[in-house]
Structure formats: C-alpha cells, structure tokens
C-alpha cells in the first residue's frame, strides 16, 4: 500500500501542487490564483524593501503566512554564499526553516549550478535548514543531494519559465526509483497535461509559477493545474494497464449477431 500523504520534512501537506508567487499582474490576482489552486505551500523571494515608497503593497498583506506555508527561495543567487545569506535573512523575517534552494549557473538558460547547489545543501543542512533543492534531472547528482541532507529533490522538467514540459521522462523515472524523498518537478511546466504526466511518473508534487501566472486566464489555469495534479496522482496510484502495440476490443464477440 502506497502512503498517499504528502509529507515534507515530517510535515503533512494537503495539496501536491506548490505555486510560485512571481510574475502575476497584481498581488490580488496572485492571491486569487493561489486560493483557486488549493496549494498550501507557496514560494516567495527575498528582496530589498523599497524605502522611497513606504506605502507600497506587500505580498504578506495579501497572502497570510499563518494560513499558507511560505517557502523562501534563493532566486537570483549564483553562489553558495549568496544563497546562505538570502535564506538566513528569510529565516529572520519569521523563522522559516523549510526553504527552496536554487543556485543558478547561467543567466540565459537558468540551469542550476550543481556544484554550488550541492555545497549549499550541505552548509544549509548543517545550519538547521530543511532544504528542498532545485536541481538538474541527473540521477547521480540527485543521489548526492540526498546524501547531503536535502529534504526534497526538485528536478527541472525544462528551463525555468520555458513551458516546454517534461523533457527527460526516463531520468525522472530513474530518480523516482532511487529515492524515497519527496520528488517534486520544479520548473518547465507549460500546461495541465505536463503536471499530470509528472504525477503519473510517480512524482510526489509539482511546483508551478509561470504556467499559471502568465496564462491568459491565470485563475482558470490555477484550477486546471489543481485538477491535473489530483488526476495524475490518482492515475499513478490506480496502476495503469500495460501498453500494447495491438488493439484489444472492449466489447466481447460472444452473442454477436
């Protein structure tokens, strides 16, 4: 029997869909999309406060961190030192220990810099952080992250914000086979079917930002993603039929006239 609870670092979450809070037209649209998506974890970024415009709206005024789990990220960090500095600050805002590590290596393709990512995972884990790690879809590196103390492995489906969908199903399946840690597809989802495929491959969850925020109708897309994740998970748990090259009639020939 498969344990169907979605557990990260010993905490159980209701939704297997994690939603990013960037790129929305407004905070109210973002809040509405999150509510519709049913997500109970959202990613957030750490940035300087605008000191010249004190009355500017804040994310925390729209999305209550007491009702939804904030997952601080390290977006824009290119070294372990940057990432650690950012997450220490995030922790200081309100005690967050569950974090999303993303250390990038290239400004154009936004691929993760895996050597720095691995080093950061080790250092952050030693400091008591629970690190969910954005990574390449590389099974060997995924194993090393696990050994370094990661609490979730989050391989990309395709480059961040590309909407290309899962490019390497084989590697995702291999990572699934080798780890009991939560496996969450992070980055590259374009449409609802991509999210379903991720779940059908046996992933524990999906993290989506651009595909919802930049859809023509973000609120409706948030609902589509919610349903796709539920649907894909149920499909995975139901045990699919074996694929067959030839047809197999659904109707018996018995009693044919």
């Amino acid at each position, binding site marked *: 029997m498969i344990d169907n609870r979605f557990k990260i670092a010993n905490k159980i979450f209701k939704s297997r869909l994690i939603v*990013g*809070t*960037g*790129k*929305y037209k407004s*905070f109210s649209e*973002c809040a509405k999309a999150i509510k519709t998506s049913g997500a109970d974890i959202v*990613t*957030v*970024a*750490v*940035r*300087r*406060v605008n*000191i*010249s415009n*004190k009355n500017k709206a*804040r*994310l*925390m005024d729209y999305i209550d961190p007491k009702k939804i789990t*904030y997952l*601080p*990220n390290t*977006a824009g960090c290119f070294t372990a030192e940057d990432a650690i*500095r950012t997450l*220490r*600050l*995030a922790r*200081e*805002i*309100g005690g967050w220990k569950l974090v999303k590590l993303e250390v990038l290596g290239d400004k154009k393709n936004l691929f993760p810099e895996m050597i720095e990512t691995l080093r950061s995972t080790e250092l952050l884990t030693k400091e008591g952080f629970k690190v969910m790690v954005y990574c390449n879809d590389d099974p060997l590196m995924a194993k090393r992250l696990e050994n370094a103390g990661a609490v979730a492995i989050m391989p990309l489906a395709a480059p*961040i*914000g590309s909407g290309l969908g899962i490019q390497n199903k084989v590697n995702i399946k291999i990572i699934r086979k080798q780890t009991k840690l939560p496996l969450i597809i992070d*980055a590259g989802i374009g449409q609802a079917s991509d999210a379903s495929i991720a779940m059908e491959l046996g992933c524990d969850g999906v*993290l989506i*930002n*651009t595909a919802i925020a930049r859809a023509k109708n973000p609120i409706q897309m948030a609902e589509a993603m919610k349903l796709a994740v539920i649907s894909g998970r149920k499909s995975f748990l139901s045990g699919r039929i074996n694929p067959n090259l030839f047809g197999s009639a659904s109707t018996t020939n018995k009693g044919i006239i």
Partner: protein
Amino acid sequence: MNIKNKIKITVNGKQMQIIPKFTLKSLITKLKMPLNKIAIELNKKIIDKNRISKIQLKKNDKIEIVHFIGGG
C-alpha cells in the same frame, strides 16, 4: 543641527544622513517598516530585531532591509 555633525549611512544602496547616536530602531521607525515583515542586516551581519533599540548607527554603516516579494 549643524550639517557637519551628520553621519552618512547607506540603506538599501541609497545614501542617507542621520544625526549622531541615531539607533537602528529610530531608522526603522522613521522608514515606517513593519518589524514583523522584514529582516535587517547591518554591515552584512543579521541583526536580532529585539536588539535594534540598543544599536547606534555609525559612519559608513551599510544597512539592508529586506522582505518577501513574489517569486518562483
């Protein structure tokens, strides 16, 4: 206050002038920042928000005040 007595500090990359013995707490109050939604760094060291009234700012101090924004 004589301008000569003013102290130059940098807050979020912008230069500011303060009077001597100005505390970090006075700065946060002046900027109207909600303490429960920010984190503060003074010269790259994170500051315990409970201690800001005890910290007097000095010449060339670099302060970073951050909060959460939307991100993926």
